């Protein structure tokens, strides 16, 4: 502590006070404690995930049984109970937006990053606690705006999560809500990422050099850089689209556009492809924002439950960094069909093939860690192990999409939907669930139920593959994405039985989440109490303190003596924070 104390001799002036003296609203609503903010992010994100999932469950009815009234609740949405094409489009656009920007990212970055990163670097809070508070509330407002759009005249945005112009520019008011909501979400991410990077770099405790960072800290820092540098172009693009919609400019509107049989009265001369460039310049790095925190979580859980150092830790870290860099120069692989010319497409094909190498290296280091270890099959470990093949399927199916020759056939089909859902759903989301089970004792001092956890796991693995595996076949059969009713086409009608099967699996998946939600809610009070502060035998700094941690995280000074995952010859953990020969 000696080195620390003199550095913050002014600390008492601007520190944000003692936990128990605060009124309720300062302690739980407008708290500056990173742990409270992390939980706020987590709870809000889970709510949005369930909401977005619910939208999809309704859409799956229309997909399985086109133009039939939704039983029981259909009348809430339309007069005849059939999900109308307009609503279908709104639900689809909002499902994507909510899942990505309001669900998975806030859970992976906002919740896990906020809660664990300061603990894992041995800090008492984030570097800028008030900014942290602000990030959460800006995110919250963005979410409220998105939800409010459902109640605006003509409903929510309906142009997909990608919001391609010119359709999105001539669309109804919901799109304006979408754009304003996005500006809030982007601002929140920017504030959050500055905070993350500064905390990780500046507030490291003594002895915690970069190459001793746990893999989750590395993943969060690289993620933060992606958010920091990739989101502003989308913010710019969002402002331009707002101008197009509100001020009548033509940034994304070409000349001679005809809408519903009438020439659009705008100056024209704009470029719709420009939006796609700006959008994908964010949205490709964004997919790594979705996956990297998950990769970090899985790494932590595998190390603890194999009681082995992560195989090739340095290679793993360099791969994550390299992945981060490369993710900025692959974006146009989403745009091969825009007629970009051979030179451009060759370049983006090449970079796409290159970026899959570090992904494979990451997977390989985890697999080699498992090899020859005696695995402790806790519930989080089950999810972490399942993550590996699921992420592999998702990643490998991306390769044919990255090559123009095959992408011409697969682009805009269900195959693409299958690809990215494998990486995001049984990939990222499984990892995030693993994280919830793993750090629940840290947060609450109690375990989640093992039995319920196993039920949740096995039902989910089976159901989720039932939802997404058939999508590859449907896509290869030529069924396009974003179709309201594919049975109007012969090839779509032939594939329709798959849709029915997928819908049943989706509803089963929903049921499978009930034990999880019940488990999360009730274990808080009634879960089995932990016997020690470090129930899993973790080696990283978050286990150096009480579970749950006190307001200031560490009551005694901590110091780091070794790398993040070290074990003695008889597999006894050698925590980073314990000084020992």
């Amino acid at each position, binding site marked *: 502590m000696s080195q620390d104390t003199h550095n913050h001799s*002014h600390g008492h002036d601007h520190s944000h006070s003692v936990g128990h003296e605060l009124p309720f609203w300062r302690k739980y609503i407008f708290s500056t404690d990173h742990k409270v903010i992390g939980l706020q992010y987590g709870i809000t994100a889970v709510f949005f995930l369930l909401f977005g999932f619910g939208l999809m469950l309704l859409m799956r009815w229309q997909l399985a049984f086109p133009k039939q009234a939704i039983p029981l609740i259909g009348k809430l949405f339309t007069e005849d109970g059939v999900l109308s094409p307009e609503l279908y489009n709104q639900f689809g656009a909002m499902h994507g937006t909510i899942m990505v920007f309001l669900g998975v990212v806030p859970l992976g970055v906002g919740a896990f990053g906020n809660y664990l990163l300061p603990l894992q670097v041995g800090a008492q809070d984030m570097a800028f606690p008030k900014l942290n508070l602000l990030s959460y509330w800006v995110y919250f407002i963005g979410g409220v705006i998105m939800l409010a759009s459902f109640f605006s005249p003509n409903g929510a945005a309906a142009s997909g999560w990608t919001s391609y112009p010119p359709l999105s520019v001539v669309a109804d008011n919901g799109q304006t809500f979408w754009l304003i909501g996005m500006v809030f979400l982007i601002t929140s991410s920017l504030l959050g990422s*500055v905070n993350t990077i500064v905390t990780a*770099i*500046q507030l490291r405790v003594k002895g915690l050099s970069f190459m001793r960072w746990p893999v989750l800290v590395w993943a969060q820092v690289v993620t933060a850089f992606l958010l920091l540098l*990739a989101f*502003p172009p989308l913010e710019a693009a969002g402002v331009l689209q707002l101008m197009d919609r509100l001020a009548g400019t*033509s940034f994304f509107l070409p000349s001679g556009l005809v809408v519903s049989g009438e020439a659009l009265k705008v100056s024209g001369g704009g470029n719709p492809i420009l939006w796609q460039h700006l959008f994908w310049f964010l949205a490709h790095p964004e997919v790594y924002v979705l996956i990297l925190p998950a990769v970090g979580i899985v790494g932590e859980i595998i190390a603890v439950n194999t009681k082995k150092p992560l195989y090739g830790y340095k290679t793993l870290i360099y791969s994550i960094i390299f992945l981060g860099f490369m993710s900025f120069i692959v974006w146009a692989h989403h745009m091969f069909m825009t007629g970009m010319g051979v030179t451009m497409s060759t370049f983006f094909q090449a970079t796409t093939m290159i970026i899959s190498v570090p992904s494979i290296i990451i997977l390989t280091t985890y697999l080699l860690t498992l090899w020859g270890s005696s695995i402790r099959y806790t519930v989080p470990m089950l999810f972490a192990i399942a993550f590996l093949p699921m992420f592999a399927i998702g990643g490998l199916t991306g390769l044919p999409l990255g090559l123009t020759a095959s992408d011409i056939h697969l682009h805009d089909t269900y195959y693409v939907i299958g690809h990215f859902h494998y990486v995001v759903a049984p990939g990222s989301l499984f990892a995030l669930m693993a994280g919830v089970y793993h750090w629940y004792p840290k947060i609450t001092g109690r375990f989640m139920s093992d039995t319920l956890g196993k039920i949740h796991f096995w039902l989910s693995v089976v159901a989720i593959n039932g939802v997404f595996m058939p999508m590859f076949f449907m896509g290869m059969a030529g069924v396009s994405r974003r179709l309201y009713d594919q049975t109007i086409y012969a090839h779509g009608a032939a594939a329709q039985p798959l849709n029915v099967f997928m819908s049943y699996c989706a509803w089963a998946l929903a049921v499978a989440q009930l034990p999880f939600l019940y488990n999360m809610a009730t274990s808080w009070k009634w879960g089995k109490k932990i016997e020690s502060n470090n129930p899993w035998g973790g080696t990283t700094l978050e286990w150096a303190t009480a579970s749950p941690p006190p*307001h*200031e995280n560490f009551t005694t000074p901590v110091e780091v003596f070794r790398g993040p995952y070290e074990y003695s010859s008889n597999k006894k953990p050698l925590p980073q924070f314990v000084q020992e020969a």
Partner: protein
Amino acid sequence: MSVIIPYIDKPNPVTGVTNAKLGIWLFLASEVMLFGALFSTLIILRSSATDWPAHGSDVLNVPLATLNTVFLITSSVTIVLSWASLKMKNLMKFKLHMGLTVLLSFGFLIIKYFEYSSKFHHEHYPSTSTFYAVYFTMTGLHGLHVIGGIITNLYLMGPGSKMWKTEPERFTGRIECAGLYWHFVDLVWIFLFPALYLL
């Protein structure tokens, strides 16, 4: 026990910067990407445009913009002087130079106001052409950054300066960050000026 966050006023000996300074550099990096995207938009739209003024000076008021450039560059100097005054422990001089900075930035906005209203007077709106769309959007966003800077600087000059008594080093650090931000706003204008008015 209360929460203690180190390196608020003194630099971290390993990285050599305070938290705020690292933070502001990261923030500026994201701002570079924001304006980078807008400048790319300008280049892409212009290179395919059918009706773009041969020179910005044909439609825009170069003398006024030149005056504005002078205003902003001078304000960048005065904000450095205000920081230097704090280094020399002179709060009054700091306030004087900060006040000048704010005055010059108001000058910038007033001139911008005249420029805009003369455009509106001639019925030139963002919807008129792609050139005007770019012009209004980019200078408008830059103007918002100027307004943000004015608010920050006024705060630091007024109520914010109380910190000088309790934590002088931390306060000086804040002024340095405000200065870095202001230089950035200035720099964006230095790119905007030729890109829109001259070329």
